[in-house]
């Protein structure tokens, strides 16, 4: 009985958390138009979430692309169609790996930074001070950071895919000797606009999810050193699971 009771209670707690997150997200979306009236704040956050994540995104993109080049070459060699390497790498990166890996890296780099920044602002009374100055912290602090993440994510994913394709080309063409003309021309003829749209839709959705989770966890963090630490961990875990789940659902819908 106590086990059943415990399960029911934890289920209720989880539901309450979902409810709180939904309400917070709605409030966030409601104040976004007003936050957009001050583009300078949003641009600052695109810089913080996007530009400062560029190095890790580009490095990871290069290595993921190079691995894709190696694995793809080995696989395609067995079917005697190594010239399709460009197509395989481009489709894999644009539709799947680009948005997903970018979102996972974003959660680890920018998401944690957002959560800990907002959590520490709360722990040092900065958010309460804003409330006391009649400034809504959700509008002034959370919304620009959320929008910054939503804008930065597709840009980062595009850069990731671009560098990834270059990495695959580096390994496939330069190292393994795949014909460069075949590599690029097959890619150009096989990749369609809808492949690119799929990637963009996914990365925008991931941007919404990762930024909303990061901002929510920071805003609701217990205002202590331990509380902020736990909230930061939750941001990474929840964002990663959310990205993979949303990825499956979007793939099922968009295919």
């Amino acid at each position, binding site marked *: 009985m106590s086990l059943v009771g415990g399960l029911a209670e934890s289920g209720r707690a989880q539901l309450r958390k979902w409810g709180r997150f939904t309400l917070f997200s709605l409030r966030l979306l409601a104040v976004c138009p007003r936050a957009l009236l001050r583009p300078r704040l949003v641009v600052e956050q695109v810089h913080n979430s996007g530009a400062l994540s560029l190095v890790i995104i580009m490095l990871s993109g290069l290595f993921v692309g190079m691995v894709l080049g190696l694995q793809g070459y080995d696989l395609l060699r067995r079917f005697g169609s190594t010239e399709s390497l460009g197509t395989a790498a481009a489709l894999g990166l644009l539709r799947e790996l680009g948005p997903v890996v970018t979102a996972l890296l974003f959660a680890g780099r920018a998401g944690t930074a957002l959560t800990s920044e907002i959590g520490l602002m709360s722990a*040092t*009374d*900065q958010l309460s*001070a*804003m409330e*006391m*100055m*009649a*400034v*809504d912290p959700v509008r002034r602090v959370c919304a620009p950071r959320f929008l910054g993440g939503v804008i930065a994510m597709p840009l980062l994913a595009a850069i990731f895919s671009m560098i990834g394709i270059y990495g695959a080309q580096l390994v496939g063409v330069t190292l393994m000797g795949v014909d460069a003309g075949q590599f690029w021309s097959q890619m150009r003829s096989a990749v369609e606009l809808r492949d690119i749209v799929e990637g963009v839709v996914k990365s925008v959705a991931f941007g919404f999810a990762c930024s909303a989770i990061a901002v929510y966890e920071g805003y609701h963090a217990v205002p202590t050193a331990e509380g902020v630490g736990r909230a930061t961990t939750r941001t990474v875990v929840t964002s990663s699971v959310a990205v993979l789940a949303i990825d499956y659902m979007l793939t099922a819908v968009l295919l």
Partner: protein
Amino acid sequence: MNDSNDAGPPAPAEAIATLADVGYSVGGRAIFDRLSIAIERGKVTAIMGPSGTGKTTLLRLITGQIRASRGTVIVDGEDLGTLDRDGLYRLRRRMGMLFQNGALLTDLDVYENVAFPVREHADLPEALVSRIVLMKLQAVGLRGAARLMPAELSGGMARRVALARAIVMDPKILIYDEPFAGLDPIALGVVMRLIRETNDALGLTSIVVSHDVHEIGKLADVAYLLSGGRVIAAGTPAELAVNQAPVVRQFMAGEADGPVPFHYPAPDYVTQLLDAGDRA
């Protein structure tokens, strides 16, 4: 406003904030039960009491950060129980609050911190913003520190900047949460002088939460002493100093033991020691 367990004076005609019969509890534990306080306009009112008696909770009630579970809280003519978020924000524009550590925005420098409320609430030309900010910084003696970041300030300086920020919108009520905690004697003297001068020069009403008996004695016009969730004494600091009630005397004289016990409630000492010995 004569409350059975309230030792406070009758509400004066010129009260800018009144708490009547207020109850507030967290997780089933009552922090306040039938608390009544009147804050007089134009005066420096001190809220004193041992740690954990709900002084900060009282401030959060007055500023509308939390809502009373019973009774009414009226601030500058507005009933906080009936205000929505917009109404509360409109009221807060007439209030300023100084947090214990200053609560300056760490990503902005001193100048931008003071300018923050102005920029958020008014669309003024930069030249005017600059004049307002410099005047407030001059008032707290930190015009020269305008371009320092909060991390570069001492505790006393951070509080002075926070004071400049709190008065930049010319509030009617200024609230201080433990303004003296952790200050050296010079900084303490400066902050005390600033609270008094700000109150009198700008015609404000000040509410100061503190447990520093000596400082409050020199600063406040009226003092309330809270203990156990209710007002146990009220009056001028001089009246409190000669109050003979045991709890008041213990607090004013800083005695370690008395009606407020030194020991946190615990099982019998000897029994617990013997039990521990038996288990080992």
